[in-house]
């Protein structure tokens, strides 16, 4: 048991994460070709518009769809369907918590690949100032609120029907993910009405911004993702947790420096045990780069599954140096 635990703590997280992300990418992007269907309540961007290959559907699409039904129906029996959807979504989410973002999200994986490309080209990445970070972090809550309120407005006949899935209209996943199965039909402007024209224009502008942003900034879009905001609102009862023992932390700042999401609290916070923040994607890079034994750890249902160790830190550092020398 101790040997297994040591092996896990010494794992090459970079390589492990790469292969796990690739597995989820194949599952969610091409699973449909193998009759795999994980349902339409997934807590990650398995895009509904990737009709041919999708192995499941992102929950945000049916959620907007359900909220956009006429108000008289929504506040009667159809409301039960919304609650049922939320329940299934929560069950999926509770298993992996925000690791859905760090390991399963196809759009997140694409951003990591773009980051790897930039790294190979030797171009430096950008970081936000703390002021910028705080401002930008709020955008995802604004998008989440709009994503709920606009379909409700459609259901109440206050807004045009074409705005029934407003976030999907502007989400870069709608444009980017279907391209991996040869579907380029989302790269179009829809001129059939003013609303669709505005929404598809916004969608393509954001897609252009997504590629540039992801190139210069690690996990650029994740700062604005309303799915991340929804995750955080439900994260308290999740089984997978990120924990910190402040007494063992020396505030060296390694965890902050490796964090793609630039979460400062991971280094500064020494009182809270449950350290996960709303922007966290649970990639566990902070745990892998922490040299203090058990200062940071990931637990599943209270059982530690991956802890920071001195041995693991040194091993990964050596591998990192070899990788850089190559």
């Amino acid at each position: 048991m101790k040997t297994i635990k040591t092996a896990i703590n010494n794992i090459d997280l970079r390589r492990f994460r790469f292969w796990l992300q690739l597995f989820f990418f194949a599952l969610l992007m091409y699973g449909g070709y193998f009759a795999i269907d994980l349902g339409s309540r997934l807590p990650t961007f398995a895009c509904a518009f990737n009709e041919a290959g999708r192995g499941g559907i992102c929950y945000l699409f049916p959620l907007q769809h359900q909220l956009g039904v006429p108000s008289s129906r929504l506040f009667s029996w159809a409301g039960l369907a919304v609650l049922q959807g939320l329940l299934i979504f929560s069950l999926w989410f509770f298993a992996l918590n925000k690791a859905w973002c760090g390991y399963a999200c196809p759009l997140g994986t694409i951003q990591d690949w773009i980051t790897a490309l930039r790294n190979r080209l030797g171009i430096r990445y950008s970081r936000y100032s703390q002021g910028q970070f705080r401002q930008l972090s709020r955008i995802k809550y604004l998008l989440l609120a709009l994503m709920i309120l606009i379909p409700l407005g459609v259901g109440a006949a206050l807004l045009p029907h074409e705005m029934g899935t407003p976030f999907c209209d502007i989400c870069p996943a709608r444009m980017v993910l279907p391209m991996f199965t040869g579907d380029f039909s989302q790269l179009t402007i829809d001129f059939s009405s003013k609303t669709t024209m505005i929404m598809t224009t916004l969608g393509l502008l954001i897609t252009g911004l997504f590629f540039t942003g992801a190139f210069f900034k690690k996990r650029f879009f994740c700062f604005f993702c309303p799915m991340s905001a929804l995750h955080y609102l439900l994260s308290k009862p999740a089984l997978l947790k990120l924990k910190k023992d402040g007494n063992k932390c020396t505030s060296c700042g390694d965890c902050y420096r490796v964090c793609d999401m630039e979460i400062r609290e991971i280094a500064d916070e020494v009182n809270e045990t449950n350290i996960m923040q709303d922007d966290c994607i649970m990639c566990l890079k902070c745990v892998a780069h922490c040299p203090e034994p058990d200062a940071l750890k990931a637990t599943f249902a209270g059982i530690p599954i991956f802890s920071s160790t001195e041995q693991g830190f040194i091993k990964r550092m050596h591998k990192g140096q070899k990788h850089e020398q190559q």
Partner: protein
Amino acid sequence: MKRLCTFAPWLLAGLVWHGSLQANSLWWSESMPHTESSSTQHAHGGPVEIRRGIYHKNLWLRTGDSLAKGSYLDEASVDTSNAKIFLLDVKGEIKPLVAGKPHGAFGVNFAMPDEGFYNLYLISEQFSESTRMINIAKAEVLKHSCREGHDHVQALMSPRQHDELPLEIIRLRAPAENFHSATHFGDNVQFQLLHHGQPLAGASVTLYTAQGWRNTMETDANGKVSFMMIRDYYPPWSEFKRRHRQDYVVQAVHNVPADEHAATSAYQQTRYETTLNGSYYPSTRDYRSYGYGLLLGTFALSFTAVAVYVYRRRGQQRFKEVRFDEDN
């Protein structure tokens, strides 16, 4: 099951086949006789009424020499004694239906509790001089709600037929068709004509659109015939609706000199006529542009890339030596 109704005036006028939609052919229609009712909701498969969570479908019987001008029947013009209306449901069970007057016109209203396709048939029989006339109006309607999920869709996609019918048109499915699919301008739609459940080769099948276009094709050896849906929707751009639904009717007529299935041998020929209604929509090619889309996407990508480059260049302050004038 044996309840019959007569459409005698309509059928008698339909005796002469002109090669175009006959003056009083019968077909089912999903379009409401009056302005849309607030009780009607749009779903995959067309308009429905939802009562206590169960989808209900209204279909009206129409007649006339064109789809656009086809009139709705009222109960006063219909003598209900010489035909039958029944439903072939998703489970393959046949259920008799009683016609009524939903929303003020002659038609039927039926519940669709299960997901899948329902076939509605009206069969009427009429005799005139030396001809026995069998008129079959068929409608195929879909019930689908995304709440039911999509795992079961492929198993329910195949069209069903009623082998006892003397003449039936079935719409064959496109290769990747599912419950969300719709027919658009430019699409090829394939039909198969069956005579007592067997493919009927060499028969003429005509497709009529609501705008008055028609096209006649002959069935191949497998009884199949294919039509390309014509683009016949040209409103001013400000009035264009991408969900504009256009109706079509496919009609086939088959005459046989003697019919072994006829109850009487006093007639020299039996004339079978069948109709199947459907709908189609504008093509995405009519209102979506790749050119503008790619232009905008490329512009956003290039603009932000240049902006980041310029921002970084401005951040790199060149070293400036500060010199003091030692004389002062």
